[in-house]
Every structure is written in structure tokens, then in C-alpha cells.
């Protein structure tokens, strides 16, 4: 396997996550348990499984957005592996700034901030000048068919597809070594979907480790190297398998 030779960017061990709903009778929902997975540089891992098996929860855990109950999530940040499951908030933020870009399902931004400013702010993180970041932002937005007439507008008024493309642009503007994608192409047309596919492939080529949820079979087969199938309702540990269509 090529993966064993490459630089490991993410290594998840014995990860478990549950929710306790205190206001609904203290119900405990076990989302997943004892997951193991790893992702190398330049590799794309697709999360698969039925709805409700915790794909998004896993992705959010990888971003430090959800706090797992057990296990560890080591992410290669600068020259060290940091465990996002136990790191203090400041470290998680630090890792996010430098290493992990996360494209959520829905765009969540400050009202009335323009699209280009949102993406510029993301692009500015790597110590870039404001001007350069702005150029980067404009280039990415253009590539995703968000024309200059929309740049100065706040995305709240955009269509669902446009909002999602702004969201994607924001994620890619960072050029982070780890990219987490939660259904990035869900509301996109074929043309834009192909742009996103190309962007993912380019990111992989530069050594980015990608973890994504792709419901679109076409996208998945185009970008994923491996598929990680979530176990059903906490019955069995997660297993990795090769995607059927990828050699």
C-alpha cells in the first residue's frame, strides 16, 4: 500500500462519541465507538454509511468541533502530532489556524460581511498580506463562478448553491494540509461540481489529506482513494474498505 510510505496527517484511535440529552430524559445516544482510521498526505478518505451513523459527527470531531468521549485524534500540526480529543482549546485553535480547513454543510458567517471579505479573511491566515489574500480570494471565487458582481455582497442574500460555493472558497483559500469536507457538492450544479472535484484533486496533489462526506457517487469516485464505512448504530467498530470504483 502506498499509504504506509506517505506522511500520516491524521491518526484516529479508539474514538467514541455519544450525546447525553439532559433535557430529554437524560437519553444517551451512542454515535460511534472505537473507531480507528488514518489519513496520509495526498490521500482522500471518504466517509460512508447510512444517515445517522455519525459521519458528520466524526468529521466535526476531527475539526475539534465535537468533543469525543474516548480515544484520540492525532493531527500532524507543524512538526508535532497533537491530540485534538484532549488538547486545550487554545491548541485546537492553533491547529485549526495552521492545519485544518473545514467546509461545513452550511455557510455560517457574520451578517452583512461581503463574500470577498469572508474568503479574504480565510486566505489571510498563512501570514499573507491583505492584498495577496484578496487576490487569492477573488481568484478562487471566480473559479467557483462567483462573479465580481457578487463579491461585495453579503452571502445571506445568495442562493443555496452560491452560499455553498462561498463556503468552499473559504475552505480552500486556506491551503491547509488537512481538509475536511461535509457534502461540499450537495447543492451544486454539474459545472461547479466539476470545479470542486478539480480543486480537491489539486489539493491532494500538493499533499493535502482530505476527509469528506460525498453523497454524490460521481464525486466520491473521482476524488476518494479509500472509503471508510461507518458502523451501524454502534454495533460494530468501523472498518475501512477500498472504494469499488477506485483502483
Amino acid at each position, binding site marked *: 500500500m502506498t499509504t504506509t510510505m506517505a506522511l500520516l496527517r491524521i491518526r484516529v484511535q479508539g474514538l467514541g462519541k455519544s450525546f447525553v440529552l439532559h433535557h430529554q430524559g437524560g437519553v444517551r445516544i451512542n454515535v460511534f465507538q472505537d473507531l480507528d482510521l488514518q489519513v496520509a498526505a495526498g490521500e482522500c478518505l471518504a466517509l460512508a454509511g447510512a444517515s445517522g451513523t455519525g459521519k458528520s459527527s466524526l468529521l466535526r470531531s476531527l475539526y475539534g*468541533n465535537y468533543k469525543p468521549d474516548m480515544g484520540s485524534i492525532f493531527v500532524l500540526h507543524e512538526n*508535532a502530532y497533537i491530540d485534538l480529543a484532549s488538547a486545550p482549546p487554545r*491548541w485546537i485553535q492553533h491547529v485549526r489556524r495552521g492545519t485544518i480547513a473545514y467546509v461545513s454543510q452550511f455557510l455560517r458567517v457574520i451578517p*452583512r460581511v461581503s463574500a470577498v471579505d469572508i474568503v479574504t479573511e480565510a486566505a489571510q491566515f498563512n501570514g499573507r498580506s491583505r492584498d495577496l489574500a484578496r487576490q487569492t480570494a477573488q481568484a478562487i471565487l471566480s473559479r467557483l463562478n462567483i462573479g465580481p458582481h457578487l463579491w461585495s455582497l453579503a452571502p445571506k442574500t445568495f442562493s443555496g448553491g452560491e452560499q455553498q460555493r462561498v463556503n468552499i472558497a473559504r475552505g480552500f483559500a486556506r491551503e491547509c494540509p488537512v481538509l475536511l469536507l461535509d457534502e461540499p457538492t450537495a447543492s451544486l450544479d454539474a459545472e461547479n461540481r466539476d470545479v470542486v472535484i478539480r480543486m480537491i484533486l489539486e489539493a491532494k496533489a500538493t499533499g493535502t489529506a482530505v476527509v469528506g462526506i460525498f453523497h454524490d457517487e460521481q464525486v466520491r469516485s473521482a476524488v476518494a482513494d479509500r472509503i471508510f464505512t461507518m458502523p451501524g448504530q454502534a454495533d460494530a467498530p468501523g472498518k475501512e474498505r477500498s472504494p469499488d470504483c477506485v483502483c
Partner: protein
Amino acid sequence: MSQLINKEAPYPVVPEQSDPDAETERKTASSKPCSPGVDDNPLLIVEDVGKSFNGTPACRDISFMLWPGEVLAIVGESGSGKTTLLRCLSAGIRADNGRTSYCSPTFGEMDVFTSPEHVLRQLHRTEWGLVHQNPRDGLRLGVSAGANIGERLMSLGQRNYGAIRDEALTWMRKVEINGDRIDDLPLHFSGGMQQRLQIARNLVTKPRLMFMDEPTGGLDVSVQARLLDLLRSLCSELHLAVILVTHDLGVARLLADRLLVMQCGRVVESGLTDQVLDDPHHPYTQLLVASILEA
């Protein structure tokens, strides 16, 4: 360090990473110029702070740290002790117990609760800022906008009228107030403008730490959004550390890096803002999050 870095993990990796000596890694991690160093010193260390009024505890056992450039929101419902805590930390009232140490460029490491009043007053004119919910509490309504901004400079000994005025204009521009209004009394400003003026008045000495009590509290939603955006960009531009008291989780999400959730005077949950709001663990936090109205 050791629990964060998996020394045992068998890395099938390239040589540089294969020998993870914790100390050297830490150095490399913090030497990157683009990121605020993970291990620089905290600006504020709060330990076991408590305050009672007539025997009724308003806040107890509060401990946390704040780093330079970090925005920390204290959320919770009215009466949860947020504002009392803020007033203790900013030395507005004396805490009953605990200590708060502040790392000042001027005075060095200092204990806020035991510092003499003149030192605290000086901090409030220079390295600290205090933004009141009602801008009328933080402004001099009877003197012009320019003088409001210039006051801190004048108290620090700036004696050049032209320079003070230039600085005032600069800050009015930064907080998006038209420079034409420099000689107008803030009495005649809208609520949003007054609040922005209050912020400018505080920022003119480039403070390192700002205390904000519901800064968007009394404002229309439309004005609120603009102010939030402004605050956010100012915080990052000036590398401001902020302790922000708010009952509005939306405001906290947009501005804060970290959250403290307070209930009945205690911190019941804390962590990264998005983590606490998206994955709340404590029953009270779950209740708060579940109670947000979706627009």
C-alpha cells in the same frame, strides 16, 4: 505536552517527524511566525475568584486564563454573575477572594486585586479598555466626539492639538463614523454611533485588554451586525484580548474564541466557542443552546 503528543504512535512517516522529542517540537511549533505562539504567557490568570453581596454569592470559584489576542465570552442568563465577575476582574468592585494576575508591559506581573488604586486607574487609561452596555456611561456626552477620543491621549500628556485631532479622525474612520461629526456632541449621535465612539475612545491608546459588558445590548439588530463585524476586525487587527459579557449566544459565536458558561455564579462549562455551542455537555448549556431562536 506528553499527553498531547503521541510518542508511542508508530508513525510511518518521513524522518523529521519520526523522533518526536517533545521539547524541540514545542519550539518549532511556536517559532512559526504566522501563528500566535501557543506557549506565550497568559495576559490574565484568574484563580478562584468569588464575590458575595450581603452573604449571597454572586460568583464563586472562577478560574481561567486569557491570552493576548484572545476573545473570551462569558455567557449565561441575567443574574448568573457575569457582570459581577467582569466588574471584579476590571477592579470596578473588590472581589472577596481569589486572585487575578495581569501581565502588564508597564508594571510587569501584577495582582489586580491588591494593586493600589492609582495603578489600576492608570491601567484603565492605557492598557485596559472598558466598554459599557450603555454608551452614555462610558462617554462624556457634553464634549465633542473628537475630545471624547482625545481624552486618553491628553491624559497621557499629548499636548499637540493638531496631533490629537488627527488621531481622533483616524479612529473615527476606523469605527466608521464620518469625520464631519468630530466637533458634534455624542448626545446627538444614534445609539450605534455612540457605541462605536465609546469603543474608539477606548482603543485610542491601543489597549491590550478590553472588558465589554453587552456591547451590542441596546442596539437594533441591523446596527448590531455592523458593530460585531467592526469589533471582530478590530480585535484581530489590534491583537486585542477581550472579556465579553453577553447573554446573546449569537454574539458570542461570532466574536469569541472561547466561552465560559455561567449559572448561579459558577462556571458550568467552558471551551472553544463552537465546541460548547455545537456540542454542549452541561444540562444548563444544552438548555441555553436549545433556547436560541432561529431567525
